[in-house]
């Protein structure tokens, strides 16, 4: 190559990062992703790629491959979960902080309601801004109505009622996933689960059932009571529930499926189970942690472990990591009832597959109820069992 190089070659000693935004728009096959992500290997000390994909549009082809992306050599995955109400509030405070008196005309109650509502819907920060702008407009408009004098108008205060009205105006137009039967538009989690493959849904079901048993203080595979004391939260969030390890969960999953009858669902092998678990973590439905150090995100092992993780293509992510105890929990921010809705449990209009899954759910629910009643009655256990029975009867 001659010395008079085009500009980029002059950067050969520079470090370059190629950012590919909205990758889901053009990635139409797993192969195209693989060939794209192999590019940095041609210049691995100079070039990196950051690919950004929206995974909400689950009809896009990318979602089908998201379970395998972490197996491609040299690829690290990072999943952004929707914002929590607290995070949304922080964002608002940061944005509006320069105004100074914002607390006066946007009281905390108003913002709290807004952030809770948005977080329950999609956690989308653009929606947050749009609804708040709409609410401000409504507040201004109502002040203008009552005080016709624009010059001496008192500053309008944005009330919760404005937020609710702005929300109504916002939701019908924008939510494409909303079904008329549900009260709010379906959350990201529900749509995500609905679009999982059959085996993935069964794994998710096993995780959910196991969480419920652990919350009720029962062990997974027998009706015996868990020895350790639980700081279980009865409200149904998974935050206070102890995790389960992969091996035990796989055994439980196997027994659940065999109780369903051998011709209904075939359990997958232990290593495939691990792969599916890795995939569920990549899309943010479960959280995995090792016994020694918690891993918050998919694909972020320590430096030493990275070598085996990154370079082997055929093994699943979890297969390499899970030498010791791997703890599995439902991911934070994912509610049990969302998982239920996604799996089709509890609504009448379902297809054949959902019907089978529902049968498993009811059978295991009865079993849990029996086991829970069998133990010495504590308030927590009884309420758990009672709640469970109610859920089946709807």
């Amino acid at each position, binding site marked *: 190559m001659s010395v008079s190089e085009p500009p980029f*070659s002059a950067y050969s000693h520079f470090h370059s990062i190629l950012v590919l935004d909205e990758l889901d*728009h053009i990635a139409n096959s797993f192969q195209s992703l693989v060939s794209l992500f192999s590019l940095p290997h041609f210049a691995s000390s100079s070039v990196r790629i950051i690919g950004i994909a929206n995974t909400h549009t689950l009809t896009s082809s990318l979602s089908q491959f998201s379970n395998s992306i972490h197996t491609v050599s*040299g690829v*690290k995955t990072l999943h952004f979960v929707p914002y929590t109400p607290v995070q949304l509030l922080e964002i608002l405070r940061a944005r509006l902080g320069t105004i100074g008196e914002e607390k006066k005309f946007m009281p905390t109650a108003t913002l709290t309601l807004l952030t809770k509502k948005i977080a329950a819907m999609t956690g989308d920060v653009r929606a947050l801004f749009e609804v708040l702008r709409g609410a401000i407009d409504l507040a201004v408009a109502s002040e203008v109505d009552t005080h016709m004098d624009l010059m001496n108008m008192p500053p309008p205060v944005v009330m919760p009622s404005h937020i609710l009205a702005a929300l109504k105006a916002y939701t019908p137009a924008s939510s494409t996933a909303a079904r008329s039967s549900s009260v709010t538009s379906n959350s990201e989690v529900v749509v995500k689960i609905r679009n999982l493959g059959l085996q993935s849904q069964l794994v998710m079901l096993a995780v959910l059932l196991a969480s419920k048993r652990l919350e009720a203080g029962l062990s997974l595979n027998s009706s015996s009571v868990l020895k350790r004391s639980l700081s279980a939260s009865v409200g149904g969030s998974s935050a206070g529930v102890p995790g389960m390890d992969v091996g035990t969960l796989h055994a439980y999953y196997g027994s659940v499926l065999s109780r369903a009858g051998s011709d209904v669902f075939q359990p997958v092998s232990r290593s495939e189970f691990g792969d599916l678990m890795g995939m569920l973590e990549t899309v943010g439905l479960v959280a995995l942690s090792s016994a020694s150090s918690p891993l918050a*995100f998919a694909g972020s092992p320590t430096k030493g472990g990275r070598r085996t993780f990154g370079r082997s293509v055929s093994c699943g992510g979890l297969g390499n990591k899970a030498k010791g105890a791997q703890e599995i929990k439902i991911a934070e921010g994912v509610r049990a009832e969302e998982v239920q809705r996604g799996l089709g449990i509890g609504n009448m209009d379902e297809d054949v597959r959902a019907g089978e899954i529902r049968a498993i759910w009811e059978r295991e629910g009865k079993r849990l109820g029996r086991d829970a009643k069998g133990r010495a009655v504590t308030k927590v256990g009884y309420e758990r069992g009672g709640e469970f029975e109610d859920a089946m009867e709807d």
Partner: protein
Amino acid sequence: MHARARALLRATCNGTSQMAGRDQERAAVEEFASSFDDADAYTTLYISGSPGTGKTALVNSVLCGLDVNVISINCMTLNNIDALWERLLDELDLRKRNKTRSKKIGGKAAVEKLLSTLETNV
């Protein structure tokens, strides 16, 4: 005052370092972007998530503070992956030099070839 508030509530990701939250994600991206000298490092970071969760904003926020050459391509403007190869060639300025050869070497192969020369160049 309400007008000011409205103006501040525009959804932008304008590449400044100001961004509330996402601390763990920020750390992960920073670590990835500083790993060029590490032979074992990941070479691709794949970020996924629903719309409006701060992905693009965070990446821009992290990269703008680093001493690194950033090439940003929004794939929404492209029709298919072949268009991406062409776009990469344009960004890398190869086409100007290899005008006569562009028929023989396909888009992807040309990109790969160019990248290989980066490592061995000079």
